[in-house]
């Protein structure tokens, strides 16, 4: 979770798009930061979507999926399951390919790029839920 500074959805969108812009400058030797950029941008897209749906408040940001409780996963999964799963998949490749030196970092980075692109699509389609 953040430290209490309320980032509104314009902020999440701006940060996510700027990070994705920087990712365009990264090459095959930069697989670690491609994955990290995807993680950071996807986190902003997750928060954008959850705020847009009205499921979380502006000062209640998701940070890493492994910090979420079972209750959080259930609530967020109702409206944003694919988004949460995309972030979780990126998180799960970080130990081997960002922190570690396991072969195949280029393929992992390519997958991270797919996931963040999909996360953006999903987030931009989010609309306020009428029942909330």
């Amino acid at each position, binding site marked *: 979770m*953040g*430290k*209490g*500074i309320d*980032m509104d959805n314009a*902020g999440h969108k701006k*940060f996510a798009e*700027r*990070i994705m812009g*920087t*990712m365009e*400058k*990264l090459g095959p*030797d*930069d697989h*670690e*930061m491609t994955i*990290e*950029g995807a993680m*950071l941008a996807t*986190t902003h897209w997750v928060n954008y979507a959850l705020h847009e749906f009205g499921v979380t408040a502006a000062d209640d*940001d998701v*940070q890493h999926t*492994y910090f979420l409780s079972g209750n959080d996963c259930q609530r967020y999964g109702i409206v944003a399951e694919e988004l949460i799963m995309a972030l979780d998949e990126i998180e799960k490749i970080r*130990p*081997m390919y*960002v*922190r*570690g*030196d*396991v072969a*195949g970092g280029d393929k992992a980075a390519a997958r991270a790029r797919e996931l963040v692109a999909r996360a953006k699509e999903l987030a931009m389609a989010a609309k306020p839920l009428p029942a909330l």
Partner: protein
Amino acid sequence: MKIASHFDKIERFDALRNRLDQFADFEIWFWTTMNAGTNAVNAALHATGITEDGPWYPQQPGVYMVEGAEPGSFVADFKPLGDVLHVGRPKIEKPLPEKVQRIAQLMDVIEEWRDPCVRDGEPVTQEIIDKVDTAYHEVVALAREVAADGEGN
């Protein structure tokens, strides 16, 4: 991870951070700096014998990803203290040599700006960039000294 692999990452991260614009690309410039610094921390901890350098990769404090039974697969497992995620994650109980303590203090200077500027939208200033950059260069220089000291022993 082996010390040589940590320094290989530092070299590539260093090349990347020099290609990026410190303001326009701040988030990834900062994250690259922090990751390079963490590799320097781990190299120094291995060189001083405080942590192990085996092929297990940190997922959370105390839990590492290790090769599974299927080729190319990885599973979570408990392993001896290897690479740390950040300074303080996990907390190291063994006494740290003076240079490693200094590296940890400098990483705290860098990480102070992680959530405020990357996640929470605090405006980035030249002063912040200079503090991070200065701390980073000292971290890497000290880690190289510690690694060289370790080779000489």
